[in-house]
């Protein structure tokens, strides 16, 4: 089975299909992490995207049990790798990556020069693209023209696709954290529960102040798409902030918090996706390695003087976290919950819970 990836500027790449034999389209992004493909593929922040992994061997340790995933299913629309490894080895493995992709109907290509593709995306900025698969005969007749009718995840509000439908509770501890689920990774819930709090997971458009749920703090989760599309969430967060309820944002949650506070966000050329993003705490000058997966960023200048820049990215100086000077509002652009990636930011959950 053959496959091709055509980018919106007409560039194309031919490869071999090792996933589900169907076609798809979406925003093409790259991630530079060297481990953690099961975690990445199930990360809802990748919703609507075709993921390119820069590490050239993928599939080495197969796919573990669902309990280790970051959500119920594969979230990416397609996967692009250099070499797919079909002979995995690991004590936790339940099936191969190819089998999993096929089971979930996700197309994937290997044999693609992922480095050339990555450099293309870096130089041009992220692009939309179309991934098609077909038999050798079909492949011979492929027209390789700029993709049309490509799905653009930034053109609509995608949160309904990745959020829960109704409120769910985890654990029975006393303190309760309301998690606004914009496509939350499971490890955010695991990280909170490990710290002895109850988690109430609510849909993206849930207005907690209208409900009778009592909570001590709010965590706005990560998630896919353009934050400005999440109008309802922004409005709800505004109200929460007005009540001075301790609030912590992660990734998309950070952007939503900034927007709710009257700030602005913008799209990065090709985003940050990887496990080696260096950020520095502007007050303590302590630096940590973080996992990141975002295409938008908070514009610090747009925030009022009540907000301070908490973290910045040491590579390109973009904002990596904001903090209110007097109120218990804080947010980070990276993923303290890791999975995949380094755990160095884990202490930030404790930092947040101090206010709760």
């Amino acid at each position, binding site marked *: 089975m053959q496959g091709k990836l055509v980018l919106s500027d007409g560039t194309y790449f031919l490869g071999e299909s090792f996933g589900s034999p169907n076609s798809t389209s979406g925003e093409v992004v790259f991630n530079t992490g060297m481990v953690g493909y099961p975690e990445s593929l199930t990360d809802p922040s990748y919703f609507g995207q075709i993921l390119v992994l820069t590490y050239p061997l993928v599939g080495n340790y197969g796919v573990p049990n669902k309990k280790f995933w970051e959500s119920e299913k594969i979230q990416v629309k397609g996967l692009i790798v250099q070499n797919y490894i079909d002979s995995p080895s690991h004590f936790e493995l339940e099936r191969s990556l190819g089998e999993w992709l096929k089971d979930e109907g996700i197309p994937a290509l290997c044999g693609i020069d992922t480095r050339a593709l*990555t450099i293309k995306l870096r130089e041009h900025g992220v692009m939309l693209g179309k991934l098609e698969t077909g038999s050798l005969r079909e492949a011979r007749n492929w027209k390789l023209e700029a993709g049309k009718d490509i799905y653009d995840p930034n053109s609509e509000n995608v949160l309904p696709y990745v959020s829960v439908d109704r409120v769910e509770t985890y654990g029975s501890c006393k303190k309760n954290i309301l998690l606004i689920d914009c496509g939350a990774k499971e490890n955010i819930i695991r990280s909170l529960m490990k710290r002895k709090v109850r988690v109430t997971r609510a849909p993206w458009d849930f207005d907690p102040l209208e409900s009778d749920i009592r909570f001590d703090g709010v965590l706005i989760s990560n998630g896919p798409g353009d934050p400005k599309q999440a109008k309802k969430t922004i409005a709800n967060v505004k109200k929460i902030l007005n009540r001075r309820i301790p609030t912590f944002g992660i990734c998309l949650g950070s952007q939503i918090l900034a927007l709710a506070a009257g700030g602005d966000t913008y799209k990065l050329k090709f985003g940050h996706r990887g496990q080696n993003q260096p950020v520095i705490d502007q007050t303590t000058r302590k630096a940590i390695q973080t996992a990141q997966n975002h295409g938008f960023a908070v514009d610090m200048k747009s925030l009022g003087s009540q907000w301070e820049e908490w973290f910045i990215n040491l590579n390109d100086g973009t904002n990596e976290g904001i903090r209110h000077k007097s109120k218990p509002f804080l947010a980070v652009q990276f993923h303290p919950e890791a999975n995949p990636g380094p755990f160095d930011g884990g202490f930030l959950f404790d930092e947040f819970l101090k206010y709760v």
Partner: protein
Amino acid sequence: MFKKILILGSGALKIGEAGEFDYSGSQALKALKEEGIKTVLVNPNIATIQTSKELADKIYFLPVTPYFVTKVIEKEKVDAIFLSFGGQTALNCGLALEKSGVFKKNNIQVLGTPVKSIEITEDRELFAKSLSEISIKVPKGGFAKTPNQALEIGEKIGYPVLIRAGFSLGGLGSGVCGNKQELSKMATTALKQTSQIAVEEYLKHWKEVEYEVVRDNTGNKITVCNMENFDPLGIHTGESIVIAPSQTLNNFQYHMLRRLALQVIEHLGIVGECNIQFALNPENNDYRVIEVNARLSRSSALASKATGYPLAYIAAKIGLGKNLPDLKNRVTLKTSAFFEPALDYLVVKIPRWDLQKFVGAEETIGSEMKSVGEVMAIGRSFPEGLQKAVRMLDIGQDGLLGNHVDDTKLTPTSERLFAVAQRLSKDESVESIYHETGIDPWFLYQIKEIVEFEKVLDSSAFGLRMTSEVILKAKKLGFSDKVIGKYLDKTEEEIRKYRKKNGIIPKVKHIDTLAGEFPAKTNYLYLTYHGEESDSSPAKPDQNYSSKAIVLGSGPYRIGSSVEFDWCSVTAAQTLRQKGLEAVVINCNPETVSTDYDLADKLYFEELTFERVSDIYDIEGGSLVLSFGGQIPNNLAMDCFRAGYKILGTSPESIDRAEDRNKFSALLDKLGIGQPPWQSFKNSESAIKFAKKIGYPVLVRPSYVLSGSAMNVAYSPSALKKYLRKATEVSAEYPLVLSKFVEGAKEIEIDGVGKKGELLIYAISEHVENAGVHSGDATIVLPPQRLFLETVRRIKTTTKKIVYELNINGPFNIQFLAKNNQIMVIELNLRASRSFPFVSKVTGNNFVELATRVMLGEDVNGDYKTIDLDYVGVKAPQFSFNRIKGADPRLRVEMSSTGEVACFGDDLYEAYLKSLMSSGFKLPKESVFLSIGGQKNKLEMLFYAEKLASLGFKIYATENTHKFLMESGIKTIRIYKISEKKHPSVLDLLRDGDVEMAINISDGIISQKGETDGYIIRRNCVDLGIPLITNLEAAETLILAFSSKKMEDLQIKAWDEYVIN
């Protein structure tokens, strides 16, 4: 801020401590220079790049021992010191100096990791205690100071157990003990060398994973690279095939170990760089911390090259007080140095062993290091990387199969990889091999993919034709054109042509540290078939031969070719740049400075095979420089010449005339130059006849070696016959060369540079040992101290004739034998030789620079002073016999040293003593043991034995030596040989520590019995760490030297106090 900083080097290359410390020291010096700090370096390794004049302000070619380093400290008044760039040698020296209060007394700050932390990491017991404070697991077991304590622990934890020694590296003194007896024996030996050993659970078949970690002064931490060992725990990381990044760890495992690594170094308070080794249970996520090395190590050199992250440079900056967020990524020059490199390729490291160079060496490998070098291959698939690495080793293997490796056993040996491949090709299951070896099935499946494709290539049944698809697939799996050609019945050249016609050409990719996220400003490159596009490469190869040159490096370090050729390659590349050329370097050895990406304009971390050099030449164009990387590039000369590539320097046709024995011999005859009689044979009988004609002893050189050593001297027909029967195959395909072995001849070398057939510069050096000790193992003196003027004159005129005849235009080296004022030529190398750095640094004239300029066509002229010097330089070999169990340490015609040192003195004796001490030799004060074979040798030794006696030495001797000396009026104490089965035996004497030095000279014609005794004596000296001399001339020189000089007479003078550069 500091004004003057002392850096300690690691001395000679030895097993466990090799070229990686030249890389780390050089980077550190560079980092300090940038800050405008004055540097003082103590390192007797004259062949290194760090001891070149550009890097350090003051260089002391002196032993890295507390005595000499203290003297240097007092003289130079430095205000700080780095201990972490010179391996275990520097670290141990530093610990001793701290203990004796030298740093405190001289107000010296130790930079980088505090001494307290180093002590914890070096003392295995303190280390285990320290980690238990933060509940981090180490192997279960205990620590013993006596063999009895060891046995108690063994009883408690059950067998098998592993023992490990503290304050060492390369697994010295470690090993698995299956039962009480083994433990008792090993613990006794190990505790002779070290004060404490760990006795612990043997973690059979756990995975071994390493992380390189950096921590700055404020506690910011990163892991720069993780590496997974292909071979499971139990095989030292230096002996294992290593892959970076890890392949079989999932996200949880990778980051769990990473987190533990950061916790451990935070707890220990490391400042700078360190390495941490883990064991990981393959069946669950259980782990153990094996050790932390609180210094730059072999692994950190590998990690630097694997990722492009300059660990030593950054560690030096941190030592000076800088912090990671303030430093920049040296590749992008834009992003932060506080990051963990993301690789979009993988690297495969394979060690290079030379066990066949040793007589009697055990072939198994384990927790002790035996390898002498390594290669690193970069690829975008494991098969691509692995097959590249196999070829890089330069051991005559083009692939994994078809190499006559014995695959009956899968016990770990230097050839296990090939045995595994062979078994897989015979359809043995991955599971069963995993069971036997513990090599993760992932790796085995990958190897299976290679061998199965190879079988397809091989089976004519498939009627496989040469199609683009087949060739491309083969290339992606890392097959060479040669191997593909072999199966498809084509030549390498035909495959190459076909490939190029069909556009199957490798692509150039950058190592950029960030997997394409940011553009690289440096040119650190590799080639791969897993790609459609090159990142960047010249639009067209350069047609202008004089604007770009490609320097071929020396490949893996091995016995006979190591850091000296890296110095030559680096110097050549630097000269090319100075002369305005674009310099491109190709090399594949991660322990080198030549593979630092800022050294040349471009670095291809690639194979030094004809195929790969051609690929690069096709891309780059320009000219090739083949004269400085030793034998590998030299051997490519003819192929490159035939392919029409432009080669700088002496014509390859001349190289061929020097390398081809028949042509060279004819040339010498034509010029009327003497040579030992020789002949080449296609069968044994005629060889034996010839030997009879020229008379014994004879020197035998087979061209095909099955086991045992290649070159040998036979003293009798029976010895020759036995040798021929046992060791070699003699046939038309594998002829044998027999030469007359000239006894009692002096050996002399000339290193020089020819300019269009004229002798531009030369240096004549004299060997201390007579011919018969390989020039790489000999002690070499420059300028010569004991040569007749007449001999010197003859050597010079003979050399001129040869230079003229071959129209030499570049570096060369000739070896001579001299006897009774007659000289004979034994070898000519039309390339830079091992001694080029030595003669350059001793005479103050850079031979490589001159040669490079000549090769570029410059009309260099000058009057060079190389004979009439006011001082003496002595180069001494470094042996690593203690690492090679069972090996006979007797010096022979086959080289066995792993490195060298050189020191200066006002006379021969001063320089000789310093060099000897630099190679780890401890001078005796009270007692020596003599065992001198043969009447002639005894007579020769008489005078020196008298000297010893008159100096008040207690002399022990075996039967005949004892009798001989007593009859000559020298009092000695008789000791029984082992074969005499009486006490006190030699073994008792050595084991009781009553002897400070042993001189064991064996006679040429040795009986089986005498040889066995001699072997046991020599081997025990090595195992017990007793200084040993096996050569008569060396023994004489040593005795004269220490009877004329005391420690206080050895001057503490920097290089520039001897040589004006």
